[in-house]
């Protein structure tokens, strides 16, 4: 059974020992913390730049490394067709098209031609000159794309269409509530946004949220618990 946002909030409250009067996390603080934690978790799965070595830009954990990492990210992996205009440009897939989550485009996973699954290779701008003018791999038969601020630049320019697999920003989770007669927030699923993650990922995200909350509350036990989970596993 996948955790809903109320389950997640309960776990966080339990960890900070709300009932023992040692700490309390308000719904607003929880919503902020859990979404920061979620972004941190996605960054972790995609690969942290800080772990790169000179001449070996690979993180310890990185997207594409194996099926386990990819499986964790599947809730935010999407696939669609791109329409490429006459100058070879296509905007990033729109957030509105990523139903049901509505998350914005974040990173390309793979790009294929409209005909079968021939690859369209990503090139960086400073390699484009030699690739565009290659006589061994003529650009007409071996298309490429570059990343721009708001979309993709394809070559050859008349490629027409492309097929993309990509990762989106996960939707921000919201623990929605209504106030009861005593002014105490009560969970309301109707105005909540549920997590898209599997249970394993939820635990990772909670650990990251607890670390942030532990810092906020200057609560060393919580921070230590979170660190232990994050670096040594559940």
């Amino acid at each position, binding site marked *: 059974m996948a955790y809903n946002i109320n389950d997640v909030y309960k776990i966080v409250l339990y960890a900070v020992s709300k009932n023992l009067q040692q700490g309390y996390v308000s719904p607003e603080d929880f919503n902020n913390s859990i979404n920061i934690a979620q972004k941190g978790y996605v960054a972790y799965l995609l690969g942290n730049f800080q772990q790169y070595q000179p*001449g070996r830009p690979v993180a310890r954990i990185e997207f594409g490394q194996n099926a386990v990492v990819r499986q964790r990210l599947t809730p935010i992996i999407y696939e669609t067709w791109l329409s490429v205009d006459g100058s070879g440009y296509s905007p990033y897939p729109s957030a509105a098209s990523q139903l049901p989550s509505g998350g914005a485009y974040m990173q390309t996973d*793979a*790009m294929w031609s409209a005909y079968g699954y021939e*690859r369209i*290779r*990503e090139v*960086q701008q400073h390699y484009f000159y030699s690739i565009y003018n290659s006589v*061994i*791999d003529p650009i007409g038969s*071996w298309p490429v794309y570059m990343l721009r601020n708001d979309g993709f630049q394809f070559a050859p320019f008349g490629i027409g269409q492309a097929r993309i697999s990509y990762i989106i920003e996960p939707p921000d989770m919201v623990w929605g509530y209504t106030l009861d007669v005593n002014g105490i927030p009560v969970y309301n699923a109707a105005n909540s946004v549920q997590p898209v993650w599997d249970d394993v990922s939820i635990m990772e995200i909670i650990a990251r949220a607890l670390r942030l909350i532990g810092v906020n509350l200057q609560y060393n036990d919580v921070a230590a618990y979170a660190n232990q989970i994050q670096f040594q596993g559940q």
Partner: protein
Amino acid sequence: MTRMQLIEQILRQVYGGYVQEDSSITPMLVNQYIDQGVAVAAKTNYTDNLKLEGISFVNNSFYTTFKNLVPVRDERDLWKITLPQIPVGIGYSEGISTLQFKDDSGVISLPCIPLTQNQKTYFQTMPHIPQRVLFYSEGENVFVISSLVLSNYTASVTMISGGLSSSLNSTLNVPPDYIPVVVQYVQQQLLLMKQRPQDLANDGTDLTTN
């Protein structure tokens, strides 16, 4: 074995498994090295045969016949045929084994006789060979010495070649016992390429080479 099969085999060896989408060693680059590797294999076969048999020759499996090549007039009594590739430099004329012409009705001529560049300097003073046409090759061209109007014919050339290199689905004309020679040559080139440091920074300065 098709070219694409060998290309995939080599790529998997070089990359230690299936090839990722962003790999920089492309099939067409490997294909180019394969053409060079075929020439190395043919030369190895030539020297192997000389050592083993005492006779220098290249095994039939290395040869490909290219048909329907069109002769064009180059000079008076001299016709030029453009080959699909430059013949290998084995022996004085091992690169091209046979040149024949075919007319509209499908009648095929006797094979033409090759000349070396040395023989080309004195062949006119030699007795004429009845019913035979002489030719010599230069680079990717074959020059045929004939007073006949050869544009009425098409030429067939049998030469040492890995096959149709422009089609990755074509069969690679290399005997199986010499495929490892091709593979070894291509691997050496590709691994050298992978071992070289890459200039990842576009900072206006080239990498030092030592």
